[in-house]
Each structure stands twice: as structure tokens, then as C-alpha cells.
């Protein structure tokens, strides 16, 4: 499993793990009933504390994305992709909203927002 941790980012490490595993489930890198690496082994591979990994796994389980069978491991649950998509969409919407609020405070107009958005999109492409 390829997870990349940015330890200088302000985003907590466990959240980075959660987001990346979610991404893998979404794009089907991880499929239903796939087993996730054990807490100790992922913590070894990422060189982070086992508690951090455990926190991420707990978080995934709470969101219903994984199931832990005691003594066997953590498995990817039957994924409801649409629901996940929906949630992620909401998150992105919220981020945009924040940005737009900020822009309004600086007195930006709609046209300017569109320009910025296009500029960013072009950059990434």
C-alpha cells in the first residue's frame, strides 16, 4: 500500500492516512474484503507511532469503511462509493465556500473567482 506522509504538514498524520486510504477505496485500488496491513506493520513502514495508525484505522471503521475482525485483521467493508463521493463533494464544497468568503472580504467579484479557479485548474493540468 503506498501511503505518503508529509510530516511537516499541518494536517494531522492520522488524517492523512485516512484520506489516502479513502482515496484508494474510491478508485478501487483497495477492493471489498481486501485486508489492510496490521497496525504495527504499517507503523513500521511509515515510521510513525502505532497509535497514530490505530487512530486512523478507528476513524475508518467509525465511518463504516472498514471492519476489524479481532485476531484476523482489518478489512475493507462493502463500500458505498456513492455515499463516499457525496461526502467528499461536501468537504470540497465547504473548502470552496471558505475561500469565497475570504475573497468577498477582500472585495473580489464573481468573475475574479472564476479566473482564479481556471488558473488553478490549468496549472494542475
Amino acid at each position, binding site marked *: 500500500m503506498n501511503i505518503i506522509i508529509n*510530516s*511537516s504538514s*499541518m494536517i*494531522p*498524520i*492520522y488524517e492523512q492516512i485516512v484520506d489516502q486510504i479513502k482515496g484508494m477505496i474510491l478508485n478501487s485500488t483497495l477492493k471489498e474484503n481486501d485486508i489492510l496491513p*496490521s*497496525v*504495527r*506493520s504499517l*507503523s*513500521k513502514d511509515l*515510521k*510513525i*507511532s*502505532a*497509535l*497514530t495508525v490505530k*487512530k486512523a484505522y478507528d476513524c475508518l471503521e467509525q465511518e463504516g469503511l472498514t471492519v476489524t475482525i479481532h485476531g484476523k485483521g482489518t478489512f475493507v467493508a462493502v463500500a458505498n462509493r456513492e455515499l463516499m463521493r457525496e461526502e467528499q463533494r461536501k468537504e470540497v464544497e465547504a473548502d470552496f465556500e471558505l475561500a469565497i468568503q475570504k475573497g468577498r472580504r477582500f472585495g473580489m467579484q464573481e468573475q475574479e473567482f472564476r479566473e482564479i479557479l481556471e488558473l488553478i485548474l490549468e496549472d494542475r493540468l
Partner: protein
Amino acid sequence: MIKVNQIEKNYGKFHLNCTMEVPDGCVTGLIGENGAGKSTVFKAIENLIFLDGGSIEVFGKPHTELNAKDREQIAIVLSDATFSNVYTIKDVARIMGSVYPDFDKKKFMGLVERFRLPKNQKVKEFSTGMKAKLKLFLALCHKARLLILDEPTAGMDVVARDEVLTLLREYMEEDEHRSILISSHISGDLEGFCDEIYMIHEGKIILHEDTDQLLGTYGVLKMTEEQYRKIDHSHLLRRRKEIYGYSCLTDEIHYYAENYPGITVEKGSIDEIIMLMVKGEAV
């Protein structure tokens, strides 16, 4: 695995008073500068020194009442001692094999070869780093479920430290009921390895926190004096006067990052956290 309850030890001016715990399946780190009391805590747990007060439990028993079977389950690396250095690696392997029924000679010799330690030379001729590796390999090769490692990486270069920490991570991966108590004055070693960290200063534990929290939510705020007067002080742990105003240690960086956009917020390294805990004044 280990419960240290209000132990006390006096050496002249130095006074140790410490409570800590090493949970089952956990890697617990103890950091602090030289002379802060790390080795004293370790020696007390190992029953090499006697307590002036308090109690220690290992495997649920008083630490003075462990039998041979219990002690075979514990591997100890002392910061300043191992077998006398007139022995060779072959001698040492023979001795360990006769003392520990579970000593895995194959694994030990494998490690010795992998790290290119000379087998027939006396330990006396080893470099500091080689000696440190040997000490650790001895501890890793008899299937102990509790490792007590006092400064196991001392004297090793960066690359060796990383290799050795990987060994320790692998050791933890093999069996989820194993626990480690480890100390180091190089906090980088412990950052990526320990599940929780205790910070000791002048014989007292001044901070106990999950590493995850330390790295995730602890941080340093930098601000002018005016900003300092205005902000909420409830999540500030320490402050220190600087030329520009104050730098403060907080355990809630996200709170300050969101609510006070004008303040510089830095995620703290463990070194910075120690520095501020020790040198800063209480808020």
C-alpha cells in the same frame, strides 16, 4: 507491563520522584537531557539500585520478586555496561545460549553478519557504534516480551540509528504483545518510533503524551507582546520572552491557527517542545 508508582531516589542534591507506565503492546519513550534521571529510572526498574520510596511492578508483580522465568522474558540494554570487553562475539553467543533457553543463535549470528561485526575479535577492539549494536542484538535474540533499552542508539551514526530502529520496529511487528521502554537524548529517534513519550527533567516527569498528539497538536506560537495580551491563554503551556514578543508552547495548534490568523503557528519538533517545557516559564 511496567508500572512505576511514585518512586523516589536521592543522590545528594538530585531527587527522583517519578510515576510512569509501560502498557502492553506499546513502545514508551523516556526523554530528557543528560542527568535528568533517565538512567536512574531504568536502574530502579532493573533492581540495580534500591528505592527510597514508592513501588514498581513488572508483569503485575513487585519488581523485586521476579523469578528466573520472568527475567528470561526481559531484555535489558544498559547505557554504560555489557559483558566485559575481553570476550569475543563467539564467547558472548555461547554465554547467552547457556543463560537464555530461547536464545536464537542463528538470528544473532545473522545480525552480526548483516552488520559486519567481527566475530573473532575481542569486543575491546570494537568502535563505540559496534559495541552499541552488539548490546542491542543480544537483547533482540532471546524472544523477550519486554525490552528495556537505555540509550540503545548512543554512539551510532545516523544511518546505523535508522537501521537499528527498523530492527526494533520489526521486533514489535512479530508479536503484538511485546513492549519496549526506551530512552534517548536524541528525540528524533523516538519521534517516529514511540507510541507515547514521557519527558523527564530534574528527576520529575514534566510531560506525558501520545507521540501522535505531540506531533499533531503541540506546536509553537510566535507573536508580538500585544497579540499575546489579546489571545486566549487557556491552551498555552509555556511562554518565553523573545525579541519580537513571545514564543509559546501550545497543545492545541489548530485552535490558534483557526482563530488567530495573525499569529505564526509552527508545528513543534519534539526538541522544541522539550526546550520550551524546560526553559519556558509557566503561563
